[in-house]
């Protein structure tokens, strides 16, 4: 067995757990907190609630919300300036993947200097980051437990993956109550993102006995609860999704992902599409491409979703791709790549970008850009 590593932050999980935010911040030595969130969360009232919690604890709060979905390097740089200008000391990220990744980018720049692009790739951060507390409001990104941050470089039209153990926050506070205000589309997109994290990290070449159970648990919980959570906002289902998302995050943070996420990042960089909407389109084709390298594992995924089966391993593996396709279609998710990408001729360029994405590295089956183009064509 290869030597492996498993690292996660302190996780505080449970309904209402957000009330521990101020005491967590104080324990990390906070006096002036830098809060990163976005306008969507302001309208739900969560930002105000967080600021009130901090105020009650006599903590100063510098609020930064100049963010879009798929946060941009320029936005991160502005945030870092604001942080330094106010001499803040602890960073709190509140939201889905975008504010949390932006918070990670800001933390990196304030302590290491330079530009976000200086840290693209693995292990390029050389100075400690300010203490970070993340509060995810979607059950999907897993960014609140992972060592990944994805920041868009608008100039090059790519999503940069920054990978560093220093990006793992000090504390992640996961309160499923925060999920109820999300739209159906956002719950679906996040859930599918989490499912993709679980599946890709499960079959990853870096998967370990510590990540695999987390991944399978996530797959099972998402398959069972996604529909109820999205269509009915069932609180119990949402809680199970939050567990699943965190488990998937623990898995992919340590085991890595695959070409599915590499392609989704490339598409997101080019067209600013919602990350969670690109993944369901690509996932069945990606799995089918990987069957030759990890037939047994894909069959295990199949049994996790569909239950015990008398079919052969080959048949099970083949079936699960269709099962996923049908599940996504039933949930009304657009399932053709042509719905997202205006022009089929762009695909070649997208695949050439994706093959260089760090996420593609642990993919179980060796792939070149032509292989990726094949996957895209299949999903077109």
């Amino acid at each position, binding site marked *: 067995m290869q*030597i*492996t*590593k498993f*690292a996660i932050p302190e996780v505080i999980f449970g309904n209402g757990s957000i009330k521990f935010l101020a005491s967590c911040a104080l324990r990390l030595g906070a006096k002036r907190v830098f809060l990163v969130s976005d306008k969507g969360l302001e309208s739900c009232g969560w930002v105000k609630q967080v600021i009130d919690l901090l105020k009650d604890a006599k903590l100063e709060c510098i609020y930064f919300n100049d963010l879009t979905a798929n946060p941009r390097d320029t936005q991160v740089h502005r945030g870092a300036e604001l942080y330094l200008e106010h001499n803040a000391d602890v960073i709190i990220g509140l939201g889905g993947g975008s504010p949390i990744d932006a918070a990670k980018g800001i933390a990196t720049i304030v302590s290491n200097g330079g530009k976000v692009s200086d840290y*693209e*790739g*693995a*292990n390029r*951060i*050389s*100075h*400690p*980051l300010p203490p970070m507390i993340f509060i995810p409001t979607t059950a999907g990104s897993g960014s609140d437990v992972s*060592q990944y941050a994805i920041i868009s470089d608008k100039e090059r039209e790519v999503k*940069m*993956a920054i*990978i*560093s*153990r*220093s990006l*793992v926050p000090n504390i992640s506070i996961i309160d499923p109550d925060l999920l109820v205000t999300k739209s159906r589309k956002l719950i679906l997109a996040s859930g599918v993102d989490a499912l993709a994290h679980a599946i890709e990290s499960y079959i990853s*070449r*870096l998967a370990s006995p510590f990540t695999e159970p987390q991944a399978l648990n996530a797959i099972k919980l998402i398959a069972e609860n996604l529909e109820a959570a999205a269509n009915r906002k069932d609180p119990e289902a949402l809680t199970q999704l939050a567990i699943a998302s965190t488990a998937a995050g623990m898995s992919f943070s*340590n085991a*890595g992902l695959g070409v599915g996420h590499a392609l989704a990042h490339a598409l997101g960089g080019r067209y600013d599409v919602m990350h969670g909407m690109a993944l369901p389109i690509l996932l069945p084709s990606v799995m089918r491409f990987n069957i030759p390298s990890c037939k047994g594992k894909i069959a295990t995924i199949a049994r996790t979703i569909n239950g015990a089966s008398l079919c052969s391993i080959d048949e099970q593996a083949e079936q699960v791709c269709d099962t996923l396709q049908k599940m996504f279609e039933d949930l009304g998710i657009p399932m053709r790549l042509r719905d997202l990408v205006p022009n089929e001729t762009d695909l070649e360029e997208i695949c050439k970008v994706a093959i*260089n*994405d*760090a996420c593609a*590295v*642990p993919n179980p089956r060796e792939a070149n850009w032509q292989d990726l183009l094949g996957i895209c064509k299949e999903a077109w």
Partner: protein
Amino acid sequence: MSTNTSLTDLMGIEHNKLNFFQELQKNIEELTTINLQSEDQRREIAAILDGVTDVMMVLSEKLEIISVNHVFEELFPGVNPIGKTCYSLFRNVERACPECPAFRALSTNSVCKETAIFRIDGRNLQFDMVASPLKNPDLTENRILIFKRDVTLEKEYQAKFYQAEKMATIGVLAAGVAHEINNPMAAVAGFAEGIQRRLARLDESVPEDLADDLHDYTDTILKECLRCQEIVKTLLSFSRPIAADFLPVDINQVAKDTLRLLDHQLKKNNSIKLTTELITPIQHVHGDEAQLKQVILNLMTNAVDAVGDSGEIKVQTFIEGDNVGLRVFDSGCGIPPENIDLLFEPFFTTKSVGHGIGIGLSTCYNIVSDHNGEIVVDSNPGKGSCFTVLLPIK
């Protein structure tokens, strides 16, 4: 770039979540090094300061002592000076001394010097003081650095040297004068004797009363010539180098010789009445005639100064037990009781500037001590003083 990312990179087994512990460690290491350096510097500076042999004090604007060096502790053993005022320790007074160089140093922002005499532990010590302003923008209040160098010994030596030099000059002068005076005196005396010899032959041819007159005149000429020669001799003996051997000395003779030198000064002032009571016979003492003359001269000079325009001075010799004594009384102004203890301290003087530096009585004291004798003073302010010198009979 991401193209180089490997599986090992993604696992990042050799990469931790960086925390501030490493940075702290680095900072502590740097601080430790810097601390060692500054400690070395501190020790070096402390060693330099310890090498300073002057009293060194840092004072506040109110002259409160902020820090002192080890020389201070030697001068004031067992005293904690921090927070006390400079003047309360050195002068035992309530307010700052008007001549203090610290104020000038601060107001002129320059290094100021001053000389002062402080009475410390029963001794008069003379100090050269140097005050430097310590103006520092980081300090809320200005400070003053003061060095005090004990120059008592140097000043004593200097005074003695002046005295010796003065005496040596007188010696040279006296030798010259003696030569120049003795020759004509010898001629005058010789011719006077010649006249006397020839007078015998004239006795029959001149009237008797005229012959008596001539005898009388020539006798007077001879007597006065002798007196001149005596004075010159006294002058010579008086100005002999100080380090002479001790010889048997007749204190009466010493007193007479010294008084003869003052004859002129006393005669000039008729209202001073000088009486002498010299006891005879008197034993010889073992001593240096010139030095003992100086003692009497100093005592007489003080007495003349004390009586001023009119009064009495009495010089007395006596025998008391195993000692020969000499007393000089005066009916002058007397000495205030608070000054009695200070009389024999070098540089103590009540005379105005230019009339004495306060070395006379201290010289007397040293000379008498060298003769294993003692000198005591008794005084009634307003009525007069009496100095008594006792010298052992050998």
